[in-house]
């Protein structure tokens, strides 16, 4: 990657006026342009090298997915040969009666629907913790905070033990139900609500005769929106990435989320070599929903992260 630096670039070196945004806009006084040049080049170089490190694997995945099986080993791995992407996708969707599409749908249900429900439940609870006083409020909050520190992997085996007692392992609910509980969501919702939902507004709504639940859904939720999007995104990613839970709960192929399905295929490549191509193209396609979700919601996510998580 080429870096073009003008050593005398004046952009970005105007002295920062008091009260401007937190980005430093001027350099120390008394430094000549040549002294500025080297650090700038060095920084761009460092960032440039790491950009390659972060993006080349994904680029390689994309290129590999466009190649037919025979081209895969023979041709330059970082550039295209015959562009067979759509043929590969079609073959992937057709393989084993479209089990891959079932997996994608499962992931969307587990993660999409799951995160939606999780966000709603967490929002309600965090809201109540912020806006109402009742005995045991802080105790509940502290227990929930403890839950934030419990990683999903630590719960997988205990959940398996619980679900086997009621014979609900290897079902949709085995993965879905644990996914709709988001203690972090409650934390973020409470913090954000305390900061952004004024009591006066709730008062006014009460005086108008609206019930508490109605007020929540018509008034408060709108104010909480950036935090809700953050919670949704966080939970969506957490569920999508969750590996131990499907690993320990699921046996039936048609219940697998797409990440776990690809893992299962990848583990069988020795027995079934044709899976190699499917794993690669499947992996590429499976990244797309996440990237789209991030791109669509990034505006809210950044606001939410700044407000809530770092306090």
């Amino acid at each position, binding site marked *: 990657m080429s870096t073009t630096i003008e050593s005398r670039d004046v952009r970005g070196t105007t002295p920062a006026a008091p009260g401007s945004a937190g980005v430093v806009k001027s*350099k120390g006084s008394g430094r000549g342009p040549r002294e500025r040049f080297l650090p700038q080049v060095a920084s761009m170089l460092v960032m440039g090298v790491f950009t390659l490190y972060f993006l080349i694997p994904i680029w*390689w995945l994309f290129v590999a997915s466009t190649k037919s099986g025979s081209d895969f080993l023979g041709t330059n791995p970082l550039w295209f040969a015959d562009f067979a992407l759509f043929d590969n996708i079609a073959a992937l969707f057709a393989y084993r009666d479209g089990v891959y599409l079932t997996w994608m749908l499962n992931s969307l249900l587990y993660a999409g629907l799951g995160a939606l429900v999780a966000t709603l439940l967490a929002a309600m609870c965090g809201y*109540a913790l912020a806006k*109402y006083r009742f005995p045991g409020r802080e105790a509940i909050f502290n227990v929930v905070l403890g839950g934030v520190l419990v990683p999903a992997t630590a719960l997988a085996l205990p959940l398996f033990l619980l679900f086997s007692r009621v014979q609900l392992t290897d079902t949709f609910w085995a993965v879905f139900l644990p996914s709709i509980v988001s203690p972090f969501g409650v934390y973020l919702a409470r913090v954000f609500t305390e900061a952004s939902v004024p009591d006066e507004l709730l008062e006014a709504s009460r*005086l108008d005769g609206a019930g508490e*639940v109605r007020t929540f859904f018509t008034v408060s939720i709108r104010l909480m929106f950036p935090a809700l999007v953050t919670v949704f995104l966080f939970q969506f990613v957490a569920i999508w990435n969750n590996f131990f839970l499907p690993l320990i709960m699921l046996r039936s192929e048609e219940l697998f989320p797409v990440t776990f399905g690809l893992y299962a295929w*990848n583990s069988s490549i020795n027995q079934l070599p044709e899976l190699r191509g499917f794993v690669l193209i499947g992996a590429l396609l499976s990244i797309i929903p996440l990237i789209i979700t*991030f791109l669509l919601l990034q505006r809210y996510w950044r606001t939410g992260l700044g407000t809530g998580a770092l306090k």
Partner: protein
Amino acid sequence: MTAPVSTPASRTAVHAPPIEGRPKRRRIQHPAAIATFVAPFGILFLLFYLVPIGVAIYQSLLVVEREGTFGEATQVFGGLSQYALVFQNGPFWQSVGRVLLFGIVQVPVMLGLALLFALLLDSPLLRGKKFFRLAFFVPYAVPGVIAAIMWGFLFSPNLSPFQGITRHVDFLSADLVLWSIANVVTWVFVGYNMLIIYSSLLAIPSEIYEAARLDGAGQARIAWSIKIPLVRPALILTAIFSIIGTLQLLAEPQVFRSFSSAVTSSFTPNMTIYATSAIPNVNLAAALSVVLALATFVLSFTFLRFTRRKAES
């Protein structure tokens, strides 16, 4: 619907604003609403966070007894005998040592890089910030399993696009495979941690820099003396979650099992737990689980204490 005009006097008569420390002699207001809001999450949290923990602890106290080799198996109370087995379990403690070694190296390297990138993003030295922010974050959108599959291919001697390197250096050998896995974890999470630290940097008011610049401090000096101390909380936060994540390592090494025979079924503590539960020996697995959870908690707590003590000194 006409909104009644509420004067300050009438407002206070209806609902006095709660003040911290006021004795709670009043009845709880809006009890039904509170219940409606809290119960759904509360019940599910109870069922899927607290009860499983209880079940795991309970199961860890049981022992399977058989009447003869082929007799019926019953689970009876066994006290702490499972825990005795845990402490004798060589592979488990080897796996613990392995992830600790992993963590001591990988976490500082990853957070060091994240800090460096965040500082560069925050400095006037860099152009194209939006691009770098996005590019560095993209790996986080790749699930750990998929990233591990990808890098498994990239590291393999024959399938890799970088055969020039992988033919000479066996990244999947017993010596290097742990660090290859470390590379996957770093690749996925550096951008994410960078953004957390960067958000923290953005919150620093610019007046602080004014004074430093008037004193003639350069960028590096400002970074070292001002920025880094001020993002300490963000660094501690990312460190804690990285430490917890390291001890919980499962997905990436499990994927690497199909690429490298050097990754055993008890390579990391969670893999040992999973392998034990698959035997099936659920009681021992439960005990291992409890021990790992306690160890994680103790480690995080100790780290927090350590950083707090350093801050006070």
